C-alpha cells in the first residue's frame, strides 16, 4: 500500500493536519490550560537546567572545599561544606520570593496589554543573556575564568580561603548565589511567576518551587561527593575545563529556548 513515497508523505501530512484540527476543535479553555501548564513547566525545567549549568557557585565551592580540607580535618571540611550548600539554597529561596514580589509589584509579567512592554524587555534580556552566555560567560584564555570582575574574583578567593566557622561558610554560599545574579535574576523573575500561576489540581506548584531551589545545587552535591571520593581540585578543574565549550552551548541554547517559549506563548499568543 505504501510503496509510493509521495503517497506516504501525503498520508502523514493529512494525519498531522487532522490531528491539529482536532486539537483546535477542543474546548479552548481546556486546551489553553494544558498548553499553559506545559509551557510553564518547560520554562521552569529549562531555567533549572541553566541554573545547574552556571559555574560560579561550583567554582567557589570547589575552592572553598580545597582550602577547608587543606586547613582542617576531613570531617570538619565536609561539615562546613554542608553549610555552604545550605547558604546557597537559602539565598536562592530568598531571591526567588523577592523576585516574585518584584514581578507582582511592577506588573512585569501578567500578560496584559499594558504590561507587554515589560514582557518584551524580559524577552530581550533573555536573548541578550543567550548571547552573553556564549561569548562573555567565560573569559578568553586558559582555565575557567568567569564573567565577574577580577577584583571580585580575588575577593571571593580570599573569602573562600579565610572561612573559619560554619556561619562563614553559610555566608559564602549565600554570597555565591548573589554573585550569579546577572545571569539568574531574569530567570528568577520569570520562573517565580510561572510556578505561582500554575493552577493545575494534580500538580502541586509548591513541590516545583522546592525542586527549583534544590536542583540548581545538585552540582554542589556532586562536587562534594567527588571530593569525598578522593578527587582533588586538579581533577575537578580539569573536568570543568573539558566541559567549557559544552556549558557555553547549553547555556546559549537554553536561554534562546526560554526566550522563544516566552515570546511565542506569553507575548504573541
Amino acid at each position, binding site marked *: 500500500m505504501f510503496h509510493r513515497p509521495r503517497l506516504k508523505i501525503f498520508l502523514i501530512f493529512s494525519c498531522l493536519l487532522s490531528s491539529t484540527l482536532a486539537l483546535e476543535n477542543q474546548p479552548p479553555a481546556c486546551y489553553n490550560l494544558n498548553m499553559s501548564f506545559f509551557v510553564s513547566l518547560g520554562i521552569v525545567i529549562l531555567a533549572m537546567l541553566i541554573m545547574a549549568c552556571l559555574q560560579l557557585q561550583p*567554582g567557589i565551592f*570547589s*575552592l572553598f572545599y580545597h582550602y577547608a580540607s*587543606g586547613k582542617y580535618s576531613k570531617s570538619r571540611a565536609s561539615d562546613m561544606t554542608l553549610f555552604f550548600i545550605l547558604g546557597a539554597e537559602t539565598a536562592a529561596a530568598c531571591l526567588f520570593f523577592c523576585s516574585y514580589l518584584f514581578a507582582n509589584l511592577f506588573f512585569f509579567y501578567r500578560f496584559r496589554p499594558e504590561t507587554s512592554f515589560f514582557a518584551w524587555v524580559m524577552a530581550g534580556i533573555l536573548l541578550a543573556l543567550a548571547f552573553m552566555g556564549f561569548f562573555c560567560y567565560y573569559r578568553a584564555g586558559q582555565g575557567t*575564568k568567569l564573567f*565577574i570582575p577580577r577584583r571580585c574574583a580575588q575577593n571571593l*578567593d580570599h573569602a573562600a580561603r579565610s572561612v573559619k566557622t560554619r556561619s562563614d561558610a553559610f555566608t559564602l554560599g549565600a554570597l555565591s548565589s548573589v554573585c550569579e545574579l546577572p545571569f539568574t535574576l531574569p530567570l528568577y523573575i520569570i520562573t517565580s511567576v510561572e510556578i505561582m500561576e500554575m493552577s493545575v489540581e494534580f500538580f502541586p506548584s509548591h513541590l516545583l518551587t522546592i525542586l527549583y531551589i534544590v536542583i540548581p545545587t545538585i552540582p554542589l552535591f556532586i562536587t562534594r561527593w567527588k571530593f569525598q571520593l*578522593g578527587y582533588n*581540585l*586538579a581533577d575537578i578543574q580539569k573536568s570543568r575545563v573539558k566541559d567549557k565549550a559544552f556549558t557555553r552551548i547549553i547555556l546559549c541554547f537554553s536561554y534562546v529556548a526560554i526566550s522563544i517559549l516566552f515570546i511565542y506563548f506569553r507575548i504573541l499568543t
Partner: protein
Amino acid sequence: MIDETTEKSLVKTLKIDAKAIGIPAGAADIFIQKSLAAAKKSLASRKLITEKDLKRALVKELKKYSADFAYVYENRDKII
C-alpha cells in the same frame, strides 16, 4: 631575591594546597623546599623577578614531584 614575607606566605599556601591534594605533610615540606630552592637558583641570574617568573619556575619544579600539585598552584586564579 625573593622577599622573606612573600616566601613565608607562599610556603604556607603551598602547604595548604599539598594537604588538600593528599600529599603527606613531611613529603610536602620536602617538595616545597626543594622546588623553592631550585626555582631561586634558576632565577638567580635575573635582576628583577616578577610574580609570574616565580610562579613559572616553581610550577616547572613542582611538576617533577606532583603533577596535580603543580596544576593546582598554576591554575588557582583561573577557577572563578
